[in-house]
């Protein structure tokens, strides 16, 4: 463990308090904490004093609604100022506070809210229909708060503006010990439903330290993290890390738009930019003349997270942007950056970088043997860093399975070179990493089976130039069903709306049967081999029934 840093005063570890009241106590109450830039050109500045007052109001709302410390509250909204107020307010009230990607469909919502036993959620009117469809399956959900309803719509569908106006802007955050549960993010696995990676307030130590020592944030920086708050990067480094240091953040509510992004970098004098490889690869495809029109001399560092950064992107960054792009590696479960390229360390393009000085990583064989440099194996970490997840909420058994032989198994495979740099090789499971989002093949397969005409489905990730991996679905049809553009579109739309847009298959293949083991498990490695033209390996346990694996025209 680290020595207690200066962000911890009087034993108070509460993240909401540290990011707001403590900054005011440091004399930063009038400093801009967030410059909000809306999709339609709206612009508003919020000081740390504003953050303190708004989050305190929301903490009072949470308490008045009867959400007790340790109970679960979620935010289901696109990026907007209320997300930040509610996130910090929920944490001040010591509710377990979760965020959800705004493009989740109702099935994805049901899995997550139901598993967590969510008691209250903040959302907006246009998303209400998703909740109405699943409301009767969520017995613990007592309150739905709407950011855009001027008055309550029902006894359990309440107006956020009304509640906030009635709440006091004073809130004394109870002394919060480091082991108090804090942030909950659901993450996809290759089997079963998504699991909630739960963190504790102690995680602020690691997030703050890495924001300072990896992102190199300084008091006068203007920092922009493009991640959505529905994902862990959006909370660890789009809220907690920078605000624990009193750094000004920009938040943009619009979608990817190369020209708008570059205008923002220039006009707002962004000094540290944290973005994603897919976004960078999209920028690489833009007309090079675009970049010459903008002055990016204010940018000091660019970082990337989500999926491995190809060497081509790093070369492009040097040539076109005049900067190194530092790839950072971490996961929802790790809560913060652990292995990384960073300022002051020579970049080896394509590598994950080196572990932070206080992190012990190793490449480990399945039997627990630590492998020598150059050998491929499981990327493992010695447990104990401050932002390590403390459980898969309500799934302790699955949590325990992530630790073996004294190591945390990341699920990634890699090797280490002689100089201590780690090189990502792949996943040891079937989870798909598409544009930095982890997608469970199981969730997509389940949704596809709901589409009329589809009898079986097997889903894999396949290499993609833009997305790193794309979702590829193999389907077998019901008798009488015919594959064509209409059914494909129906399947795409269904997955987009039931699960999430990021889970939508980019490509479909039709088979007579989906290859399965004799016990009925989908053999995704066989599907992968079919897709890539590689060897299927040992198929002795396969149930090759009725021409399984035979592709339809």
């Amino acid at each position, binding site marked *: 463990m680290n020595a207690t840093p200066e962000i911890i005063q009087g034993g108070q570890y509460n993240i909401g308090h540290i990011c707001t009241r403590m900054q005011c106590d440091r004399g930063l109450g009038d400093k801009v904490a967030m410059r909000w830039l809306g*999709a*339609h050109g709206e612009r508003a500045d919020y000081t740390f004093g504003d953050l303190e007052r708004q989050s305190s109001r929301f903490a009072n709302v949470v308490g008045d609604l009867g959400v007790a410390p340790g109970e679960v509250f979620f935010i289901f909204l*696109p990026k907007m100022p209320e997300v930040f107020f509610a996130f910090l307010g929920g944490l001040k009230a010591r509710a377990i506070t979760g965020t959800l990607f*705004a*493009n989740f*469909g109702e099935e994805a919502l049901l899995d997550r809210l139901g598993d967590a036993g969510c008691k209250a959620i903040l959302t907006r009117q*246009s*998303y209400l*229909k998703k909740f109405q469809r699943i409301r009767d399956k969520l017995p613990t959900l007592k309150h739905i708060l709407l950011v855009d309803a001027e008055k309550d719509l029902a006894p359990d569908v309440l107006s956020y503006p009304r509640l906030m106006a009635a709440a006091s802007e004073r809130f004394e955050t109870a002394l919060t010990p480091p082991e108090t549960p804090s942030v909950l993010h659901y993450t996809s696995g290759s089997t079963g439903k998504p699991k909630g990676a739960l963190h504790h307030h102690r995680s602020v130590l690691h997030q703050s330290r890495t924001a300072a020592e990896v992102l190199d944030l300084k008091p006068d920086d203007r920092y922009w993290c493009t991640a959505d708050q529905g994902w862990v990067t959006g909370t660890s480094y789009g809220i907690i890390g920078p605000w624990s240091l009193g750094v000004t953040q920009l938040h943009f*509510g*619009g*979608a*990817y738009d190369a020209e708008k992004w570059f205008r923002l970098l220039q006009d707002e004098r962004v000094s540290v930019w944290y973005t994603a490889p897919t976004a960078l690869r999209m920028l690489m495809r833009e007309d090079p003349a675009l970049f010459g029109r903008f002055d990016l001399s204010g940018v000091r560092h660019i970082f990337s997270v989500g999926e491995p950064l190809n060497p081509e992107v790093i070369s492009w960054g040097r040539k076109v942007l005049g900067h190194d792009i530092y790839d950072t590696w971490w996961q929802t479960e790790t809560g913060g950056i652990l292995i990384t390229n960073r300022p002051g360390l020579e970049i080896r393009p394509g590598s994950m970088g080196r572990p932070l000085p206080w992190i012990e990583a190793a490449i480990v064989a399945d039997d627990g043997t630590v492998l020598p440099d150059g050998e491929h194996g499981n990327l493992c970490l010695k447990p104990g860093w401050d932002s390590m997840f403390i459980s898969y909420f309500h799934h302790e058994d699955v949590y325990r399975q992530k630790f073996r032989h004294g190591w945390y198994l990341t699920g990634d495979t890699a090797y280490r070179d002689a100089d201590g740099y780690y090189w990502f090789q792949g996943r040891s499971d079937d989870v798909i990493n598409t544009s930095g989002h982890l997608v469970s093949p199981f969730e997509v397969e389940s949704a596809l089976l709901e589409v009329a005409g589809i009898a079986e489905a097997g889903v894999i990730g396949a290499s993609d130039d833009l997305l790193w991996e794309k979702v590829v679905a193999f389907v077998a049809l019901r008798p009488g069903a015919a594959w064509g*553009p*209409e059914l*494909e*579109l129906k399947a*795409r*739309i269904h997955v*987009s*709306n039931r699960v999430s*847009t*990021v889970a*939508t298959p980019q490509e479909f293949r039709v088979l007579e049967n989906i290859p399965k083991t004799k016990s009925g498990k989908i053999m995704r490695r066989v599907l992968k081999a079919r897709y890539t033209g590689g060897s299927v390996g040992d198929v002795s346990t396969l149930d090759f029934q009725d021409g399984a694996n035979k592709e339809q025209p």
Partner: protein
Amino acid sequence: MTTLEKLNGIFRTVFDNEELNIGPETTANDVDGWDSISHVNLILAVEMGFKTRFSPDEIMAFRNVGDLVAALEERKAG
């Protein structure tokens, strides 16, 4: 039925929202769930609904619903 009305029906199906009402100025920032992936769903649905095909350059040039309507009207006129 006007092009915009027909298009509105397609939008409602693609974005699973029966209350959606689009106009010429509507952009991706105004519709829940309209991102780069659902944009592909939308274009496929529009091509199927209007029995036409768009070139990649055309798709890139669509800035709002009005541009999409204009492209469809142009095809109808042609």
